[in-house]
């Protein structure tokens, strides 16, 4: 089993909505990129699995803060640091993919965040999904009203969500060696889902 790094996983997923982000090779490059984003950023060590547990993720950094942690984060991983715009989520989703021993590749969509394991509000789709199936699956979620637009918020963008689900499905379909895909979290802000972190595990 080999887990791809976050950056490799995102490249494997291909064209999915993501925050603006860049894998930086020097602190100077990182700071320059952060300035173009114009707001607080997240800096993540590149390479190690469980980067959060190992202190490899720093949030809400300005350019100076980023400069001060860059070397430390680079040393935790492969010498590079992933810099991304800070996304403040209205809520989080998890989009995953596994190979079911009986039904083959399946994609899951569920409510993310700290209560994900508590609530276990997740629905599955056979991969590749057929047109219309995602909508039916989402309707089975207890958090379906949230996705339809809770308390006047815009609904979760179905086209963007469909792209994420399709990307996970395609990875499982095209590469027999992929055993698990995890887009977690998919942060939803103003109805727009963004794959903030991703993990692809190959056999």
């Amino acid at each position: 089993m080999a887990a791809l790094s976050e950056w490799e996983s995102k490249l494997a997923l291909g064209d999915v909505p993501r925050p603006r982000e860049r894998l930086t090779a020097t602190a100077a490059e990182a700071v320059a990129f952060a300035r173009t984003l114009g707001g607080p950023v997240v800096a993540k060590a590149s390479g190690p699995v469980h980067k959060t547990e190992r202190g490899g993720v720093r949030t809400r950094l300005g350019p100076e803060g980023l400069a001060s942690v860059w070397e430390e984060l680079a040393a935790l991983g492969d010498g590079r640091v992933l810099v991304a715009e800070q996304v403040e989520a209205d809520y989080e989703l998890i989009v995953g993919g596994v190979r079911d021993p009986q039904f083959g590749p399946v994609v899951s969509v569920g409510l993310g965040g700290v209560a994900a394991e508590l609530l276990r509000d997740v629905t599955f789709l056979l991969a590749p999904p057929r047109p219309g199936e995602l909508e039916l699956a989402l309707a089975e979620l207890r958090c379906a009203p949230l996705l339809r637009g809770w308390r006047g918020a815009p609904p979760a963008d179905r086209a963007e969500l469909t792209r994420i689900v399709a990307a996970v499905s395609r990875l499982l379909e095209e590469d027999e060696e992929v055993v698990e895909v995890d887009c977690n979290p998919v942060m939803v802000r103003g109805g727009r889902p963004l794959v903030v972190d991703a993990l692809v595990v190959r056999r």
Partner: protein
Amino acid sequence: MSALEAVFRPGSVAVYGASRHPAKLGHVLLRNVLTGGFEGRVVAVNPSREEVLGRRSVDRLGEPVDLALISVPARAVPAAVEDAARAGCRAAIVLSSGFGETGPEGKWVEERMRGLARAAGMRLVGPNCMGVVSRLPGGWFNGSYFWRLPGAAGPVSLVSQSGAFGGMFFAEARRRGLGVARFLSVGNSADVELTEVLEWLADDPATGVVGVFAEGFRDGRRFVAAAERCTARKPVVVLKAGKQAAGARAAASHTGSLAGSHGAARAAFRRAGVIEAVDSDHFFDLLSALAASTVPAGPSLAVLTISGGPGVLAADAAERLGLRLPPPSEATRARVRELAPPFAAGGNPVDLTPQCPPAGFPAAVRAVFEDPAYDGVVVIDCGLDVAELGRGVAEAAAATGKPVTAFVLEAPRVEEALRAAGIPLLPSPERAVAAYQARVAVAPRPDREAG
């Protein structure tokens, strides 16, 4: 004749292990075949060639029959399978246990028997199963260990990975007056497995509703394809056992395992248009509702009652299941006001109250049935045994053609009228609503081509 044709509609049958001892399963099996109503030729096979139930037995089959039923000790099974294959049988059902369920060695014997059968062009059902029950023009063909059969012939067929569940099925069928067409227990599925049986039932004209009891699917995608083909013609209701074991494995933090593999099964059922039952009560409720009619129903429901509290329970269940409970039209409300007491509730539930004059029931009931706001009606009657109410419901249902399910408690005349009208009676208000929902679930979906 296809192998499953031979299983469900054999012209001739051999029983291996036919024994004189009434306690032996082979004896039970032969007696069941002989007394169920099977009109074809029956050959008893027994190495001692003794006379069993008044017929001579043979030690080898020697001549082809359509179906061999094998109930001999495990160690003698391979020889029986070989004998049946050599004689030219189309199919054999091995009811005996002691194979794959005991370990890898038993699994290996299964493999060998399957090879033996296939080489001779014979298919194998089982081992470790309860056999087959099938309704034929002359009566029941009972090639099973069950000595109590369903009371009535009808549209419901069951393929089951559990033999014992077949016993529950027959008991429920008798209790509910549910008409049965076919039953097959597939046991260890050494050769013929559930999906292949589903494919056959899809084409079986006697089968109008298919029930599936499954613990697992050998080839999940093939099941989906078969079930999808079947649901285009007739409803398929699945009871999946082992949902919780999957959930228990779900400790890992990643989504994929959050709901375990039952999530994948649900996705498969959704795609195939299969209705999944929550538990065995729900399973039989769904089969009862669909046995009455498979015409799709809309989600807009009237709860028609004379019993306040139970009516509210039905309304709760309806909302939980995603059904709609619109209020009656002004015209309906006015009509109900004319016929029922002033304190009758003209909302939804429509509560006519026990004080409604008996003569008023037929017209009040009719008004609710005819209200265009409603696709169908659930009737709740606790203890009001007024013939006019039963007659009113039966007449209104017939006149409007709207789907109805009912919960009737201790009101024999009402019960009788509804039963005679073919209205499914369920054991609780909530289950009456859930059974109604089965008719909604068979409606064509936007993501599927209409069957």
